[in-house]
């Protein structure tokens, strides 16, 4: 038994937001108790006074680089970073080596996650074999092996007919396709958002339309076949508008954005800073505002950081050839907490974007809620603590972050996964990484 004492328990899935105690037993949420803490409790007590007690956070879009690119990250290091950042579950993309397009790879990731992980690992399998955009993967076998969704993330499924067939084929099974929405022809080999900064620096631009055209296409295909679609890493105003429109039309289309898209703009690439290079690229201020609005009005279902570790030498080079992507698992929570500042996002809403939202999108049972009987995944958040994100804090194998040196507010005080404390900054509470 484990008792989390006296915290503000916020569970958007059940509508709870009140001070009390949360009991965990045998890997499950046992129940919530209001009032005085039970005397003579037989088990570990974690003091959480002044802190938030929320469902274990879920990041539905990470790259753990395992198997195949373990020098960038592996399941052990990536999930350690996740736990430190407050995440008890991550969904990892399929662009590994070999690609996660077979049940063997899916099972290997799951097995390694169980053995070495500090958080739950949910594999996302490829839509097409080898991510080549030519043939569909064996969807049901992959799902039976444990894949929670399908995505060719890193690149789009370019052929619209193939995407249609995939979405249509998996519809009876209820699987969701996660779309890296990009028209690569329109992106034209660009390396940064097509705007003033890229023009000034002489960097070939990626127009917003490269994302918007692809989102529109994918939504229209989903509408045609009635499939479940999820738009990844939305970065543009029109991208948010299209998702909103799809939702209003009653389509089962969900969407995520990443903290970098509501925190930074393309101004961050000044000086050719390759740590601000990613795909989709950091956009203009109007796009950033639109992403914020999409979060505020509930259009966006989930915040996912697109954790993309890269060794230094593929970033320490010319901007045009530098690798895309940034690490994010340890900065996602504090950057997301900054959304509360304007008062337009409530704590419960914010917690939902990082727990119940992604759990719903991926159909993860027993996750994203503190209801009795759910898995004992709990994050204790200290929303006030101030700290600086320094290179020494990075638990990933890679340090490619534009947020190094940033002053952060809020952090995970403790991360409990399956009833085990995986990260703790609370005095007297030990963690088993």
């Amino acid at each position, binding site marked *: 038994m484990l008792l989390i004492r006296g915290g503000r328990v916020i569970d958007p899935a059940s509508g709870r937001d009140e001070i009390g105690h949360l009991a965990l037993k045998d890997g499950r949420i046992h129940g919530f108790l209001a009032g005085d803490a039970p005397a003579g409790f037989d088990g570990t007590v974690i003091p959480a006074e002044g802190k938030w007690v929320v469902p274990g956070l879920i990041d539905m879009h990470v790259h753990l680089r395992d198997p195949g690119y373990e020098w960038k990250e592996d399941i052990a290091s990536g999930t350690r970073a996740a736990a430190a950042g407050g995440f008890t579950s991550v969904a990892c993309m399929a662009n590994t080596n070999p690609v996660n397009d077979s049940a063997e790879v899916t099972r290997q990731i799951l097995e390694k996650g169980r053995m070495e992980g500090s958080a739950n690992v949910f594999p996302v399998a490829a839509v097409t074999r080898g991510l080549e955009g030519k043939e569909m993967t064996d969807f049901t076998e992959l799902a039976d092996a444990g894949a929670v969704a399908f995505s060719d993330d890193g690149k789009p499924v370019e052929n619209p007919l193939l995407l249609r067939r995939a979405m249509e084929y998996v519809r009876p099974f209820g699987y969701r396709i996660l779309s890296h929405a990009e028209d690569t022809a329109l992106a*034209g080999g660009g390396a940064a958002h*097509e*705007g*003033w900064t890229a*023009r*000034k*620096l*002489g*960097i*070939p*631009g990626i127009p917003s339309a490269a994302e918007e055209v692809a989102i529109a296409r994918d939504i229209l295909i989903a509408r045609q076949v009635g499939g479940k679609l999820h738009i990844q890493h939305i970065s543009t105003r029109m991208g948010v508008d299209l998702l909103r429109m799809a939702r209003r039309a009653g389509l089962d289309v969900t969407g995520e954005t990443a903290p970098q898209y509501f925190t930074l703009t393309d101004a961050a690439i000044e*000086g*050719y800073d390759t740590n601000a290079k990613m795909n989709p690229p950091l956009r203009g201020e109007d796009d950033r505002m639109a992403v914020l609005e999409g979060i505020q009005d509930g259009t966006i279902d989930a915040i996912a950081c697109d954790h993309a570790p890269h060794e230094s*030498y*593929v970033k*320490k*080079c*010319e*901007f*045009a*050839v*530098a*690798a895309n992507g940034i690490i994010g698992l340890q900065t996602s929570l504090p950057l997301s907490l900054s959304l509360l500042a304007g008062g337009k996002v409530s704590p419960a809403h914010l917690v939902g974007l990082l727990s119940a939202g992604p759990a719903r999108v991926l159909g993860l049972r027993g996750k994203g809620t503190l209801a009795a009987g759910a898995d004992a995944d709990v994050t204790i958040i200290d929303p006030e603590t101030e700290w600086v994100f320094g290179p020494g804090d990075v638990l990933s194998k890679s340090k490619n972050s534009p947020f190094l040196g940033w002053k952060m507010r809020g952090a995970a005080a403790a991360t409990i996964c399956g009833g085990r404390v995986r990260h703790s900054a609370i005095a007297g509470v030990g963690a088993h990484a």
Partner: protein
Amino acid sequence: MEWHRRHVLGLSDFHPEEMEFVVDTARSMEEVLTRDIKKVPALRGKTVVNLFFEPSTRTRTSFEMAGKRLSADVVNFSSGTSSVTKGETLLDTARNIEAMKPDILVVRHSASGAALFLSRHVSCSIINAGDGQNEHPSQGLLDLYTILKVKGKIAGLEIAIVGDILHSRVVRSDLHSLGKMGAKLRLCGPATLVPKEMARTGAVVTSDIREAVRGVDVIIMLRIQLERQKTAYFPSLREYSRMYGLNRDVFSLAKEDAVIMHPGPINRGVELSDELADCERSLVMRQVESGVAVRMALLYLLAGGSHAAH
């Protein structure tokens, strides 16, 4: 004034006084070039490495000539574009060269920001001889110097730049050199090659060459890179030449004493008609002359010279 720069990476952070200082220094360098023996010992014992990752004959030769006339030891290093996936990285190449202890690296590279990147990782001075689509500062300064020689001033001049604005590092340096000295600039080319964001520079942006050159003092024609035609920014060279080529008819709209410039090499009959390329109002050869003097000035100042006047 005193010169404090260790590198010349671009003109975006140059003050007008600094550019004037370079021009003044170039003027005294040009005097050297009129002598019987066109060589001074100013950079004796200094080593200049021309590190070129992109094919270039004229810029490299110009820097080589400039270095030799100042008695520097000049070494040319040419290489294909570096790659992080195969071969040596740019950083490794530069560090290898640096280990041989040169004093100045003159760098030409196809990636925007390459010179700035190197300046953060090596200890010698760097002159950017063109980085991708970003800047070509010595070209910006030689254009400034050439116009000054002919017009005596920059402030108030109307200057049209016509061609592939999108990919041009010359434009991005000229916007600073000519713009900061008070010229009024007009940028012209096919809409696919003139980003609408360029209006933010304060320049007039148009796709009408007649509007662009009407009443101007200077016309800078840019080279159309034929190899870019693979991605089809415009229908054909014939169409391009018809709409954006400078011929006598269009040129007649400019001021009577207007001059023509071109950073070279010229595609005769495409962006510039044969007769205009060779006419008395073409400053193309004077640009080349100014180029050596300006590059001598930059090498001299970076090597620790204060002013070449004495």
